[in-house]
């Protein structure tokens, strides 16, 4: 159970990191805020159920017909700002938060080991990356079940899949979004090694997420688009094709892996050489 090898890997520290993350009120406040998105969407549409505007792939128009689309629509709504905001808070806090609290020096003297602490911090934030879209999807599905009829899911092609497969695809979309946020997490981790002021690191991370999306809108930068952090964020709709376009999932994973490697290396370079003065 607790062999020295296992301990050297830092699993004990990782377990503690995840426990502490979910013992914080802030974490729950953010997850509840995210879960409130589908509830608001569902209630608003229920109250104002008029004729469909029928515009765009926002899926809002499909909700009245099938409650399972509450989760899909809410994910798409949360991706540009709400999700990056919460990811930015968690990732920006990783190192800078410990520094400002005064715990960084004690973790390092324990000794956590700088590379090990960095990996544990990344993994802890990554867990939140998956918890966040999952909160949206779960709350969305429950809202959908409560307020709307639920039935076979109509895909983008017009084909229908049964409710069970619809739910699985919803979970796959949550996983897709979790992966899509890993790059931003690595960026936040790096920014967090640059400062002892967590709020600064959080804000910088969120600003970078927004900037990436703005650049992604500029046609003049077309050539740059495939390499932008946020370029794959809205690709989750490809999971509603028939069959699901898994290659988009792969592109997403590859892009995010690239960001994790580059910003992970930058964070490593910075964190393993810096003086800990906080």
């Amino acid at each position, binding site marked *: 159970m*607790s062999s020295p090898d296992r301990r050297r890997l830092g699993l004990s*520290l990782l377990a503690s990191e995840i426990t502490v993350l979910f013992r914080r009120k802030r974490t729950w406040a953010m997850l509840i805020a995210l879960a409130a998105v589908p509830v608001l969407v569902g209630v608003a549409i229920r109250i104002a159920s008029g004729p469909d505007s029928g515009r765009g792939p926002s899926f809002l128009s499909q909700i009245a017909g099938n409650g399972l689309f509450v989760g899909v629509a809410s994910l798409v709504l949360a991706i540009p700002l709400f999700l990056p905001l919460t990811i930015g808070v968690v990732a920006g806090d990783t190192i800078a938060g410990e520094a400002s*609290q005064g715990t960084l020096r004690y973790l390092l003297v*324990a000794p956590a080991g700088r590379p090990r602490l960095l990996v544990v911090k990344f993994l802890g934030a990554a867990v939140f990356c998956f918890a966040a879209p999952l909160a949206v999807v779960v709350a969305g599905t429950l809202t959908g079940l409560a307020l709307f009829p639920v039935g076979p899911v109509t895909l983008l092609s017009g084909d229908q899949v049964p409710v069970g497969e619809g739910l699985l695809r919803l979970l796959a979309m949550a996983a897709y979004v979790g992966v899509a946020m890993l790059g931003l997490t690595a960026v936040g981790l790096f920014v967090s090694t640059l400062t002892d002021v967590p709020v600064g690191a959080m804000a910088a991370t969120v600003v970078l997420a927004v900037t990436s999306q703005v650049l992604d809108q500029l046609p003049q930068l077309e050539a740059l688009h495939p390499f932008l952090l946020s370029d794959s964020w809205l690709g989750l709709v490809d999971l509603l094709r028939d069959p699901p376009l898994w290659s988009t999932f792969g592109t997403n994973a590859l892009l995010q892996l690239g960001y994790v490697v580059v910003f992970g290396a930058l964070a490593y370079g910075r964190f393993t050489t810096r*003086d800990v003065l906080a």
Partner: protein
Amino acid sequence: MSTGLAIETDGLSKRFRGHDAVADVALAVPDGSVFGFLGPNGSGKTTTIRMLLGLVSPTAGTAAVLGSPMPDGAAGVLPRVGALVEGPGFAGYLSGAANLARLDSADPLADPRTRRRRIGEALDRVGLGAAAGKRVKAYSLGMKQRLGIANALLRPRDLLVLDEPTNGLDPQGTREVRTLVRGLAEGGTTVFVSSHLLSEIEQMCTHAAVMRTGRLVAQGTLDELRGAAGDDRLHLRTPDAEQALAALTGAGLTPSLSGQEVVAPLQGRPVEDLVAALVAAGVRVRGVRLAEASLEDRFVALTGEGFDVES
């Protein structure tokens, strides 16, 4: 540890943006000693300690802790070192016990099966047993300080590095820390403790070093430091101060008038001879007192009288 030194530094220096926080420090902390690290505010104590613990890399020089070079040997050495650095640092939203569990889980050599028991014992040792489940946010300054000491005691250590451990403690807490340090030293732990309070160092240390504006200005056993403080002094009470000054000067001393008393460093001369000389010179001797050289004189001589922070 063939050198018999728990801490050894050579030319240890740290520059912050062109300002020498620590300059050319050569510390030698013997195994088993209780070593006081003295110096006024801003003299470089904490910066030195950060370098010893691998938190800060020296600009120049080397440091060895328990025989291993720092910061390269940190992973191997730090599990044997308990430390309190520049005050306690804890997550306010966690309880005292949960904070300790978190830090203990960061130590790759700490056994998770004994964690609960060790945490309980450490908390009891610093008198926090009753507050173990309380959030640290609700701790007083002294309670946090105690928790910081408990963290240093989570496992048996070969070396304790305590940066101003009695900061914020009440008189009982201060006394408990002294007792704790003595007990640990008797058990064979080397204790390196920084302070700007001389009396504290005098009461618990066997050795001491003194810092001033980043430089090490003295180190040795307390007796060596006292010895270097110069002579014991003669304090004479007399109505004939003028004659006394003349007589003592005639005897080869350098007396001075200090309030109602004539004071002169003894320079190794027997007191009885000097009294005889005074009486022979017609000085009416009302009282003679011998003042032994104090560490405080030495400390003030080394670090200056001024109140202003030097840098």
